[in-house]
């Protein structure tokens, strides 16, 4: 099966895709973007969070064939011009990374949250990140990073959209 999809602005045409292949495996093994992590494969952990046509999803629960003609944005696609995205910078500055495995998914979710709600209260951040598990118990610094990104975004425009 062939899949045509735009990933991070680049058009891909991939042949020999398995009908039951997940978008997660497709991104990691066919497109070579390994920032999106494979942890639970059942939508519990959020490590594989990406945008499909501007909507935040778990890529492990989307079949690759379902994104035919769609635009996918992964953690690698958030920054621009060789620079990390301000949300990523905030995670670096806040030290909101321990083992780092959950971080790409958390960053995509945080990016989605801040694109829709530039100044969320802590309860909203907790709710919106509830689909992302960190097993190093590093949530406090993650919350700090999101506040930091929100505070900085008061001055800067976020790039990329989140439709939901």
């Amino acid at each position, binding site marked *: *099966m062939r899949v045509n999809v735009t990933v991070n602005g680049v058009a891909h045409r991939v042949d*020999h*895709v*398995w*009908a*039951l292949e*997940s978008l997660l495996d497709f991104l990691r093994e066919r497109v070579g973007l390994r920032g999106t992590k494979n942890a639970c*494969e*059942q*939508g*519990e952990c*959020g490590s594989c*969070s990406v945008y499909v046509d501007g*909507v*935040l*999803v*778990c890529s*492990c*629960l*989307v*079949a690759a*064939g*379902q994104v*035919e003609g769609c635009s996918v944005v992964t953690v690698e696609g958030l920054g621009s011009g060789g620079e990390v995205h301000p949300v990523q910078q905030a995670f670096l500055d806040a030290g909101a990374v321990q083992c780092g495995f959950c971080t790409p998914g958390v960053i995509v*979710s945080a990016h*989605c949250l801040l694109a829709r709600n530039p100044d969320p209260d802590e309860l909203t951040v907790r*709710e*919106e990140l*509830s*689909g*992302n*598990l960190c097993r190093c118990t590093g949530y406090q610094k993650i919350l700090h990073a999101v506040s930091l990104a929100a505070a900085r975004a008061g001055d800067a425009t976020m790039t990329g959209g989140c439709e*939901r």
Partner: protein
Amino acid sequence: MQGSGSVLRPASWGDAVLLRSQHPEASPICGGTDLMVDVNFGRARPGALLDLTAVAGIDSWELMDGGRTVRIGAGVCFARVIDELAGQCPALAQAARTVGSPQIRNRGTVAGNLATASPAGDSHPVLLACWGRVEAESVRGLRLIDIDDFFVGPKRSALEPDELIRAVRVPAATGPQQFAKVGPRNAMVIATTSFALNLDVAGRRAGTGIGSAGPTPLRARGAEQMLEEALADRWDGPRGVGESVAQEFGALVAEAASPIDDVRGSAAYRRHALAVLGRRCLSWALADLEAAGAA
């Protein structure tokens, strides 16, 4: 691995129904939040997928019967139920808020919940309480399945092998509705047990639904009858319908359940929790009813 089937992507509902009959080996998929878990863990190996996400119009909802019924297309995700239907379908929106996580709510649908037919499906108690109906369509035609006839066993529904769920019809609320769910944490939780209550003020009826406490979602008929008798001529101002009625109601809800011990909870705990959820939901709904009457 390669070449084993394909992803069928009809652009119209007519084509989807036709493909369903022509490709019995294909599993329907929309949000994928149930099916892909089974695929990823090797529990499902469908010969092909019938992807409904490209079907025109499937992701819209509309009012019918002069606004008395909400028809929710099979592709409407839970996030949109929360954002757009909290007015007409308050308990369904409440239940939708408890589904998985933001990522799951962006993909999962009420129709998919029904197709999986898990006893723990979050929308099921609400659909029972609201007397919802399921539009099932095949090349043989469209039929409406009453929600009371839909669930026939654990993860088994009345859908025929060649049928697709096109939409779900939910009567718009005419009075207070409540949904409550118990689980070990606030997010990403499959219900240990859940309960929905619908006070249909216009129809002078009480609707209930129990989740995760039986082989299928269940209706608490005894509790409904008791409440209708207790409200009798007081639907527009339930003064005097108090704590003792709520207690009895909760007890009858627990009595209607048929729970088992499993990894999410014991039968005894589920029964206890249902008595509490039943009592609480009725207390909240009666407070809403009084507030509406006073307004």
